[in-house]
């Protein structure tokens, strides 16, 4: 494990990605305890101010502090990413493992179903859900989570099938181990790497999807600050305060970039063969 971290810190994209991701996590954690101002505090006399010592990044059209909103907005992105990936990971890995352990009709059914789910990108599911239940954080998380299930189911099944074909699994079966025990003892530990890499990348995709949904007004609702809605509000002030439309976008971009770089780095680090081939 010590060797892993030594290699990891020297891997440029993992190191850069890890740093950006750590910044995102730190911003969210910090904002739980402290922010320069309460993010939803309206202060009309000080609206649309430029960056200053009092307001590092200025204020928006209602006088709310931009830096504070950005900090607290990080919480929103992290929660959405964690839960949406958690839904996809939990159900997707379960389905993928079942498909791979049982083969036959179960595999066919699960794989057809996950092919089918791709017909409904997160945005379409979100549109259907919000049309009925109204917009909100939960609906957007559910929509993104549903889309993640087939992503993980496919990866799990592909990787697990390869493990099932290995000699040590045959040996375990000969020794009388059942499919459940083999899945837990041999399959999952051997496919964990691939799942971690995909989880990192899905986390980034979830942040992007959530920002788009919130921008459209289908996701997180006020007064909870979110980067997507900050962009939506900034668009109405573009002629007076163009910078307002820049900060939240940069925050989203750096978070997504960080997670993607970290995912790429992890893939290289965990698969030495691939790293050499590149």
């Amino acid at each position, binding site marked *: 494990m010590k060797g892993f971290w030594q290699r990891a810190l020297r891997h440029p994209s993992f190191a850069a990605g890890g740093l950006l991701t750590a910044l995102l996590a730190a911003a969210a954690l910090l904002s739980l305890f402290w922010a320069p101002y309460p993010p939803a505090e309206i202060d009309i006399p000080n609206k649309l101010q430029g960056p200053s010592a009092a307001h590092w990044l200025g204020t928006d059209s209602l006088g709310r502090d931009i830096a504070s909103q950005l900090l607290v907005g990080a919480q929103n992105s992290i929660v959405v990413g964690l839960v949406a990936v958690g839904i996809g990971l939990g159900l997707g890995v379960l389905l993928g493992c079942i498909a791979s352990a049982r083969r036959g009709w179960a595999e066919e059914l699960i794989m057809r179903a996950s092919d089918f789910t*791709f*017909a409904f990108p997160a945005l379409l599911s979100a549109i259907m859900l919000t049309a009925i239940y109204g917009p909100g954080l939960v609906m957007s998380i559910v929509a993104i989570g549903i889309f993640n299930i087939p992503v993980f189911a496919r990866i799990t099944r592909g990787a697990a099938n390869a493990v099932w074909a290995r000699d040590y699994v045959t040996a375990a079966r000969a020794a009388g181990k059942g499919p459940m025990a083999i899945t837990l003892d041999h399959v999952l530990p051997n496919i964990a790497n691939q799942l971690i890499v995909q989880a990192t990348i899905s986390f*980034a995709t979830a942040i992007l999807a959530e920002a788009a949904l919130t921008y459209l007004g289908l996701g997180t609702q006020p007064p909870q600050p979110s980067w997507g809605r900050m962009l939506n509000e*900034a668009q109405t002030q*573009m002629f007076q305060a*163009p910078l307002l*439309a820049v900060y939240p*976008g940069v925050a*989203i*971009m750096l978070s997504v970039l960080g997670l993607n770089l970290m995912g790429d780095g992890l893939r290289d680090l965990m698969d030495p063969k691939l790293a050499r081939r590149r």
Partner: protein
Amino acid sequence: MPVFLLKRFATFLATLAVASVVVFVVLELLPGNAAELILGDTATPESLAALEARLGLDRPPLERYADWVGGLLRGETGLSTSYDTPTAELIVERLQVTLPLALLAMGLTVVLALALGLYAASHHNKLGDVGVMAASQLGIAIPNFWFAILLILLFAVHLQWVSAGGFPGWADEDSGAFTAASLGEALKALVLPAIALALVQAAILARVTRSAVLEVMREDFVRTARAKGLTRRQALWRHVLRNAMIPVLTVAGLQFANLITGTIVVENVFVLPGVGRLVFQAISNRDLVVVRDVVMLLAGVVVLVNFVVDLLYAWVDPRLRVA
């Protein structure tokens, strides 16, 4: 070949059928009473009963489903509750914006991605390659609606070359005829949205193109071709490109689906009267009839594109035709 085609076609139809059931169940059965949802809490029992009768909610679900699908197939769709117009009419009108936009964006994506991907692959591990890869990593991380806003900031607010949004229509406003000027104006309104949509997709596709080309360049037949005296460039064009197309096609197909849903977001940034704006307004108006038909259309397009990609595979790689 015919067996392959038939099998794929059957899967395509089955997927469409399942999609229609899902859309129907989610939007018609799950809400309980759609009329209540549309009219809100303040509705009187009379108005509820009237709307229920108009939407046909008093009939059994199976009959409603059959009616809806039958109507879709015949082109006779239900009436939008907010516009009082058949949804097909609304959608066809809005597609005149969305379809050209999606195609323009797809065209841009493919051209950009192939150019960048090939360039990076043929300059493997040199400065150009690293530059393209870094730029594409950045492109993937940029949300398309934010890029759209940045484009508006630069070209509409700062340089004032184009308007910040809106769509003038394809025909001339006064005469109603299609003139070169009116078509040009309309196209101009679609250029920035198309660029905003294409950037992210091109970044992803460029990476796929690069790695696919690199993969094929290591194959024995390419070495043979080079040994027979072909230059690197000749080998690339004659042997590598066609063989590298399979992963590129797969991803491009999936991306078209992303572009279609991406238009929903980008149309709202640029206030373009397309299908995306239609469905978005339908949500605000609680117009479930429009939401249902648009979602079905978009899901149908995604399924259709996947079907076409499957066929293209078989065309590019004859080995797959027997599988």
